[in-house]
């Protein structure tokens, strides 16, 4: 009996519906998988049969971690660990017994007998047995090998053993759900306004899930805001890299701009004036980086600065479009995603960001655009924006947790 090769079978969803562009989407997805696995060893990533195959030429030390990495790449619907080997029917049966033995060992808590069925796909039409015959034969062999532990159930099985008979043989059974969506890099680039809150990381995640490649900007106002608040944003960025890949984070020193705004703008309009200035600076950064769109975590009506009028007043400050993927979402739904992607526990740490330091007791909820223009009158907006653009620290965070100053 010869050995087998450990491989991973990656299923694609939406991408397979693409027409002439499909190759581009698949190439990007394969690139993203390669990049994600770089620190785990050498892997060969290829496509075939509407799926992507990840092969390792060496024994994999931590298959769970590999599965997790592949599963977190947008565009992946599911991923299964699989065995690949050469040989005929005898080899297939022998490998199936070993494969199922391993499976039973990994799931010791499933009540006995474990119910299963076999499904076969026969790509090699010259193979002497037909698909149903192969399935039936494998079923028999497995029942013989594990008489007390297995029972066939084609309707509600605990696991399905998939056998694929092509130029080489493949066995796989359990799969892990992927993030779905589209591969990052196929949907253009966007600059995410990242605060320490719950919403903005989720907004970034959602845009990345549609294939957008992100950079992020954070407005830090030392000494009004604490080093802990800054660290929190770095930690959030690091969690996001699990989905977005490498993430470039621009940290703007906002304190003096905030002081200038506070000195000039009536208290009830201060938050909006601050947000307008942040959008102007963000648009400046995006322009310099050839990024055409901003992303923010606003949800309609959530706080005073997120009423329709307030959002429109903010958008009036810059010509660059602002995407708001959470605009129609309830907080509960956002929180659910934040929990699932692992940003929630960081987001709820109690460190203030610069939006909450100077919050007014009665902020204006229905501002008119001319009110803001009037409030900003006398401020040299262009020079304040340039001041922000001149005080930027840029960090690159990678999925490995490595962080580098640009």
């Amino acid at each position: 009996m010869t050995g087998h090769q450990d491989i991973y079978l990656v299923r694609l969803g939406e991408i397979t519906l693409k027409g002439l562009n499909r190759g581009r989407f698949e190439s990007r997805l394969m690139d993203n998988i390669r990049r994600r696995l770089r620190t785990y060893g050498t892997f060969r990533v290829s496509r075939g049969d509407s799926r992507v195959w990840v092969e390792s030429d060496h024994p994999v030390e931590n298959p769970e971690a590999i599965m997790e990495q592949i599963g977190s790449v947008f565009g992946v619907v599911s991923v299964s660990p699989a065995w690949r080997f050469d040989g005929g029917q005898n080899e297939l049966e022998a490998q199936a017994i070993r494969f199922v033995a391993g499976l039973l060992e990994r799931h010791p808590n499933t009540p006995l007998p474990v119910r299963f069925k076999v499904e076969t796909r026969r790509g090699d039409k010259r193979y002497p047995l037909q698909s149903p015959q192969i399935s039936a034969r494998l079923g028999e062999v497995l029942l013989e090998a594990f008489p007390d532990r297995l029972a066939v159930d084609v309707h509600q099985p605990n696991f399905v053993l998939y056998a694929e008979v092509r130029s080489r043989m493949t066995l796989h059974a359990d799969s892990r759900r992927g993030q779905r969506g589209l591969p990052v890099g196929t949907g253009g680039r966007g600059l995410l306004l990242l605060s320490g809150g719950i919403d903005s990381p989720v907004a970034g995640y959602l845009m990345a899930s549609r294939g957008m490649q992100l950079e992020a900007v954070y407005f830090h106002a030392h000494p009004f805001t604490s080093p802990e608040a800054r660290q929190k944003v770095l930690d959030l960025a690091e969690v996001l890299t699990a989905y977005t890949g490498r993430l470039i984070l621009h940290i703007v020193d906002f304190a003096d701009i905030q002081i200038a705004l506070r000195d000039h703008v009536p208290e009830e309009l201060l938050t909006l004036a601050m947000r307008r200035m942040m959008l102007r600076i963000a648009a400046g950064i995006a322009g310099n980086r050839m990024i055409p769109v901003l992303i923010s975590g606003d949800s309609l009506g959530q706080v005073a600065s997120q009423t329709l009028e307030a959002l429109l007043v903010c958008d009036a400050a810059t010509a660059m479009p602002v995407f708001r993927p959470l605009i129609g979402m309830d907080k509960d739904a956002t929180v659910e995603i934040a929990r699932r992607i692992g940003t929630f526990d960081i987001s709820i740490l109690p460190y203030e960001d610069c939006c909450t330091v100077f919050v007014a007791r009665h902020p204006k909820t229905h501002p008119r655009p001319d009110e803001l223009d009037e409030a900003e009158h006398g401020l040299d907006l262009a020079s304040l924006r340039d001041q922000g653009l001149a005080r930027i620290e840029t960090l690159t965070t990678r999925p490995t947790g490595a962080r580098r100053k640009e």
Partner: protein
Amino acid sequence: MPAEVLRVLTDVYASGCANPASGHQAGRLAARILKDSKESLALGFGCKAEQITLTSGATEAVNWAVWGCAQRPARILTTALEHAASRMAFDILEKRGCQIVRLPPGPSQTVDLQALADALRQPADLLSMILVNNETGAVQPWRQVIELRDRLQPRLTIHFDAAQAFGRLNESFTTSGADWISGSGHKIGAPVGIGWLVSRSHRLPQPLIVGGGQQGGRRAGTENAALAAALAKAWELRKACLTDHNDRALRLKATLLEELDRLGVPWTLLAPPNAVPHILTIAFPGLRGETLARALDSDGICVGVGSACGSSHRASSGTVNPVLLAAGWPRQTVSEAIRVSSGPASTTDEMKFTAQQIAAAWRRLSDRAPRQGRKP
């Protein structure tokens, strides 16, 4: 920490001493160092070595005193001006059914003696109070407190949390008539990680930490001879320069305030006139204390916001220092307060520099500072 204290610490660690309870040579060496250190400390405190129990710090000593008398549904008298070490313990005891009487502060931010006298008319199990307030430096009228106890309820146990008092007040609390007195090593120049409870008699709280029966069963856990030796050395040094230290602290306080006046920065001192000068809780209008503290931190100046022991829980706004509120200061002023502490190594130049950095930060950051072009 003074260099001599550090040297004692490293010398003892380097001497190869071991667990003082071990019978071998290295253990006996540790036991001797420990015994000498406790005796030297006792000499300095004006008590006997057996009266001293070493702990991991003042928090443990205070906890021990508070928990140790709460075996039954106790009635405990304390003040509204306590450090979190006892305040939190009392909050828990109250939930468990003890009656906690928190005496209000009088006009000088010290305990209202009339209220204390009234409370003493009913039997109580413990009177526990902080001797020098860690936020304001206010000194409790402890002699009057003991007199009242002696007159109205002579059998009542008194515990003084003296963490801020040792090494600052030139008094011998150990002979004051208080039953239990707790203190902290790092407040007198010893390393962090050691504190003590001095008891007047054999009457002691129930042990908080049990195990190998160390320190006569009062406090279990292997004793650290090196820390004990460093503590004894630190106390010896501090005691010798106590008057100097206090005079210097007074001068440093005056320097800071004069320099602030010269620079035109308005300030409010959140301390009564009798406060020890080493702790300076001071507020600047229109500038939050934590913001100022962060600005000064960037300049290499370490100041406190509230009490350092509690400020990690105060990262967000909305929670302001309960002791300063209890002392009667408005919420706004309390949120604007920082605490400047001076030690034996602080200098006049450092104080001037601190005042200048405060002035610079206040002019830039405060919304009450005069700045060009500000809205009216």
